């Protein structure tokens, strides 16, 4: 297989960089909100200027969960395709269009939230009603991401036509899987926003079917987290091996894992709705079983990664049971940051299994355990891998280099993040097991021993959160250095190659009709009957409520 790397034109680099600029501005704003939340919840600090806790909570969730992730991923994926299959002038224009549509949507939603007209949190559950501009903003972000997806599909299609009979480059294949999943999943939230929320927020529809909005949201909400995770997997499978001086473990296994992730990420949304009253428990259980199927590709991923580490180490001559492990490039931040991310996925994944375990879910549902969980998975595994990518991607795009000094700062950043997150996430997990709720301003409730214990853990979270914010400042500093000030030079874009004696990849793995068809079949199986039930047995709809979120 040819793994010839294409060179970015100036225009291309500029495009990929604008996505990175939005990413790191979001990191700073969203991170600051996170810090403020932990301080408020310690009970020792009050927000100035009458700012409401739930406004900053909404900003935090939307800007980190939707804006940072989506901009980073789409920019990174464009660069992956640019490296492996190339981008035409026309596609470049379409990519810019996707950027602007998403940015306009983001700004619309952000302004609505900041003036206090959309304190509905990142899940915007009906019948809380935000200002219509919030829903329009979300719609633009989704539509912009679809333009990016169609452009990505087109990029691979054009390459395939020019390279008949050849298998697609692995990373291009992975990007296509992730965007296919994104499009199929976001149809759910787009339906809710366009057909239910917008007419209702404008007053054209009097009532809204609450359970249906939630079901459509979670049909999207779970694949959303896989949309964050898959780019991290791309780096683990196809980039980290190159950084440590090794080769791909197996092209076919990597593709198979991504196909399984596509199939089993979507028909599983009910595991976020396990304690809801209006869904048949048998269908909940069926989706729980489907949820657990993603454990298999995750086990495959874990095996492949550690196999690559060992094979590479042994080839370099390191002996003994763990000799290869000690000699991994621990002082290279491009490796260290994603590696810590991988480690965090072990407790993160185990916690996820608990969350999705049908009846066991009621132990932790909506407690701050869940917040602790996704600060391990999203805010450690995914984000540390994204940082790990940024250390070489940003200088590659700006024609600069990651200097030894910046590398050391990066290592320090990774350590700060690990320490801060260990403190914050662990105390969230424990407080959650003791029943402490998530998404709540500081409160002493009815007082008593139970609540006093919760508040102690909230103090620990404020300490962890403050350490994390130092990490954020440091990361933003490193970004600015890499973008504007680091010495000029060439930074490698690391893409791992296959072994020279690798077995050929089975053709069936690239049969898109088959895999997308199976994905849709699974979705129809998991959702058709329960959604018909929900619609048929729906209670009278809900009128809007905007006063509870402070709108007059």
């Amino acid at each position, binding site marked *: 297989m040819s793994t010839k790397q294409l060179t970015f034109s100036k225009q291309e680099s500029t495009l990929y960089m604008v996505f990175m600029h939005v990413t790191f501005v979001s990191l700073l704003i969203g991170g600051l909100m996170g810090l403020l939340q932990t301080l408020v919840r310690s009970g020792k600090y009050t927000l100035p200027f009458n700012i409401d806790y739930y406004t900053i909570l909404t900003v935090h969730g939307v800007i980190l969960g939707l804006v940072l992730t989506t901009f980073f991923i789409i920019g990174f994926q464009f660069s992956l395709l640019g490296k492996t299959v190339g981008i035409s002038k026309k596609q470049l224009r379409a990519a810019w269009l996707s950027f602007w549509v998403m940015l306009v949507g983001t700004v619309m939603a952000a302004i609505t939230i900041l003036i206090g007209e959309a304190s509905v949190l990142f899940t915007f559950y009906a019948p809380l009603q935000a200002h219509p501009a919030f829903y329009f903003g979300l719609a633009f972000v989704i539509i912009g991401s679809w333009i990016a997806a169609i452009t990505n599909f087109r990029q691979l299609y054009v390459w395939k036509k020019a390279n008949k009979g050849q298998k697609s480059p692995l990373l291009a294949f992975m990007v296509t899987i992730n965007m296919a999943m994104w499009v199929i999943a976001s149809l759910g939230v787009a339906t809710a926003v366009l057909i239910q929320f917008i007419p209702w927020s404008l007053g054209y529809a009097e009532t809204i079917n609450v359970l249906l909005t939630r079901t459509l949201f979670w049909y999207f909400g779970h694949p959303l987290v896989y949309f964050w995770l898959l780019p991290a997997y791309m780096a683990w499978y196809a980039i980290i091996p190159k950084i440590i001086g090794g080769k791909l473990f197996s092209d076919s296994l990597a593709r198979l894992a991504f196909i399984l992730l596509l199939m089993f990420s979507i028909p599983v949304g009910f595991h976020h709705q396990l304690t809801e009253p209006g869904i048949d428990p048998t269908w909940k259980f069926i989706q729980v079983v489907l949820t657990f199927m993603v454990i298999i590709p995750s086990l495959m991923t874990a095996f492949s990664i550690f196999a690559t580490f060992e094979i590479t180490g042994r080839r370099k001559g390191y002996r003994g049971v763990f000799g290869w492990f000690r000699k991994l490039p621990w002082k290279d931040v491009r490796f260290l940051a994603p590696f810590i991310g991988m480690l965090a996925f072990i407790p993160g994944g185990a916690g996820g299994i608990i969350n999705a375990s049908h009846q066991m879910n009621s132990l932790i549902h909506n*407690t701050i355990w869940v917040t602790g969980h996704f600060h391990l998975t999203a805010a450690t595994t995914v984000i540390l891998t994204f940082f790990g990518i940024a250390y070489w991607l940003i200088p590659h795009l700006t024609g600069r280099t990651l200097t030894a000094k910046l590398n050391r700062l990066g290592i320090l950043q990774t350590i700060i993040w690990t320490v801060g997150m260990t403190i914050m996430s662990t105390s969230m997990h424990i407080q959650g097991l003791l029943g402490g709720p998530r998404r709540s301003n500081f409160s002493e409730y009815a007082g008593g021993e139970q609540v006093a214990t919760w508040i102690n853990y909230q103090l620990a979270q404020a300490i962890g959160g403050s350490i994390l914010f130092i990490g954020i400042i440091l990361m933003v500093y490193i970004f600015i250095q890499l973008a504007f000030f680091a010495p000029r030079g060439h930074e490698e874009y690391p893409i791992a190659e296959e072994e020279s004696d690798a077995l050929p990849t089975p053709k069936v793995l690239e049969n898109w009709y088959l895999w997308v068809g199976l994905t849709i079949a699974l979705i129809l199986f998991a959702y058709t009957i329960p959604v018909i039930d929900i619609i048929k047995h729906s209670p009278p709809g809900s009128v809007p409520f905007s006063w509870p979120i402070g709108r007059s």
Partner: protein
Amino acid sequence: MHFHKYEKIWLIFGSGSLIVFLMVLGFAAFWKGTHPQSHIETIDPQNIEAHEAFQAENLGLHEVEDGKYIVNIVASAFNYDLGKDENGDIVKTIRVPKGSSVLFQITTRDVVHGFQVAGTNVNMMVEPGHISRFETVLKNNGEFTIVCNEYCGIGHHLMFGTVEVY
């Protein structure tokens, strides 16, 4: 497709544990009846009083037979209505003897709320148009905080109550 021998062992072991785990969950859910709450009973959110359990005089704790209780609750932003006591004062604490079997029955008259009795298995979403129910045996003495654990607006953290097991 080629799988490494160790990878086969790893995947067989992993998938095997997964199957055992799912069988345990399934057995507990379908044979032991530990499904999460799902009653699929609907109600008009603008007229919840049409249901007897949610009329003002029926809210709060009722003993239905020896050691068996029902608690009817109406959630609204930002309060749990647990009825009034014999003096006409608002009830904020439910008191039940240790070992009682208690059925919590709740609905909302406005937005989505949560209902968790922290430290017990009682943890439900409360959604407009639906009735949420969960029955449990309260085996431990103590004071347990009732918290709203689904965001319901800017007073969300002020929505609470207490269950006291004596």
